[in-house]
């Protein structure tokens, strides 16, 4: 353990460590640790109760006294949910939407962010302001007219109708722009002197260079699209095209909720995101979001 006592006033990215010269006071340590864990407990209770309940047989769900753990662990809810609703289909639809949109989002954001960072034109500046403005004005707010546009483009009730309107994101474009601003212009100049076209420079040099940004954006975009509700709800009418969220809504919105099925179905829908989190935890929790979202 090294204790760095010669910290400079410059930004320090490691977590704060007290120098060992300071006398240890246990009161605050206990207080802060207790505060943290009380909060953490409050945060995990809803989730734990939900997941544990999903393993109770239907008869046990409402039986008093309630028990934290199921008396008889059961996957009855899961099997019913899986057989009564076509979850394989909803999974496939959601995966298509999430993956295709994510790939397109990353490529389009990278190209646009690159242009904003490396070319100086008046119209580019104006366009950049326009893109930033979209974060202030979410399209959910003007959904009646957005719906009409989607319908008139012939995208109603098609998977593409969910994908195409979701491709551009100000956050993604901004992340890439900030990143490419830190890439020295000399690199570009050198490639230009070598006679490479702008498109080639982008595809063979600039895009690979921004892999970390592409990766972070891909995780976030996948998350946005997997959990998206409003556009699939508006655009998809045919139950065979439903995504998971829309399908879940039809269960929760029913007159008499079948809780056993609903709980299990909801747990199933989280599994892919849980995998993404377990695999990429490091990238998600350490993503320097400030550099992405702020200049």
């Amino acid at each position: 353990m090294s204790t760095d006592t010669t910290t400079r006033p410059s930004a320090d990215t490691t977590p704060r460590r007290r120098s060992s010269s300071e006398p240890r006071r246990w009161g605050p340590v206990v207080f802060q640790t207790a505060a943290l864990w009380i909060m953490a407990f409050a945060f995990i209770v809803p989730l734990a109760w939900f997941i544990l309940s999903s393993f109770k047989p239907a008869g046990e769900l409402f039986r008093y006294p309630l028990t934290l753990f199921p008396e008889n662990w059961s996957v009855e809810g899961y099997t019913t949910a899986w057989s009564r609703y076509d979850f394989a289909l909803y999974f496939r639809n959601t995966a298509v939407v999430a993956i295709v949109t994510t790939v397109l989002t990353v490529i389009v954001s990278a190209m646009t962010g690159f242009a904003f960072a490396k070319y100086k034109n008046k119209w580019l500046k104006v366009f950049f302001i326009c893109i930033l403005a979209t974060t202030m004005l979410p399209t959910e707010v003007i959904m009646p007219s957005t719906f009409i546009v989607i319908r008139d483009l012939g995208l109603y009730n098609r998977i593409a109708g969910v994908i195409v309107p979701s491709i551009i994101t100000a956050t993604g474009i901004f992340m890439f722009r900030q990143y490419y601003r830190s890439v020295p212009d000399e690199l570009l100049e050198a490639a230009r002197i070598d006679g490479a076209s702008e498109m080639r420079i982008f595809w063979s040099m600039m895009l690979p260079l921004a892999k970390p940004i592409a990766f972070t954006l891909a995780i976030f975009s996948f998350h946005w699209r997997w959990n998206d509700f409003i556009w699939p709800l508006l655009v998809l009418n045919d139950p065979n095209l439903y995504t998971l969220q829309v399908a879940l809504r039809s269960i929760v919105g029913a007159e008499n909720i079948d809780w056993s099925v609903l709980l299990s179905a909801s747990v199933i829908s989280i599994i892919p995101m849980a995998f993404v989190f377990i695999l990429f935890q490091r990238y998600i929790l350490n993503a320097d979001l400030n550099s992405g979202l702020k200049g």
Partner: protein
Amino acid sequence: MSTHVESRKRRGTHIPQLAPLSFTVITMVLFVLFFVMPGGLGLYYAFTDYNGVGSPDWIGLENFANLFQDEDFYSALLRTLTYTALTVPLGFAVSLLSAWLLTHPRTKGVGPARVIFFLPWLVSPIVAGVIWRWLFGESFGLVNYLLSLVGLAPVSWQSNANLSLAVVIMAGIWGGMAFSMLLFIAALKNIPQSYYEAASIDGASTWQQFWRITLPLLRPTSFMVVLLSTIAAMKEFALIISINGGGPGTENYLMVQYIYSTGFERARIGYASAASMVLMVLLLIIAGIQMRFDKGAEYE
């Protein structure tokens, strides 16, 4: 090393004018199709009686005149503002407190706690709604059961409009906190440790250090968090649909749900567009006020 320069047009110093266009053309088309057109059409529909089919008829300000006498509209607007006014500051406090505890050297066991705080991020608003609905069920929920154990009467979490909104607020904070927390954690880690050391040599308490050093230095991030969470709260839809469907009755309809139900369930596109425009103007005003407050908010 390449010396093909002479065989080609000299490109070394001049940038092809069409290059930036070719990089941005897709974004431009999508921007025009899905932002400019809906915006323009929405503004136009707001002055018509469009119902989704046929051609819209111009009716001037009639929609707006009706809207300002529409009790459902006022109710939805008031509910949305209440929801935002409570969720944003509470969410801010919770995310800042958790980020502060997680980055403070005196706190133990931060690793697992950080993961726990982050878990709700994985959960979609629809599923978050299911989780909280299950927890606060009036006759079957865990919360009422625990209250009954200590001898309290069951609370009407679903049939009372205010309590029902309180559940939505808790769920909203629970589900939306993780992202703000990450922003705060990143910013807190960027505050040089030496500031705190100097302050504690001068005898400043932890509390004083927080107010005098941490909070002022977090200003740009705080601004970002408030702005993003305000916008998110103003357009809340999926969460409330799933928790109580805007119920009991229509008492907890939020703006986006009101727009959805007038526009799509009752096919009054023109009228719903007028409501959209009001919400849009409101968002612009809120963003404008916050921009003014934050002088450090430049994107350059």
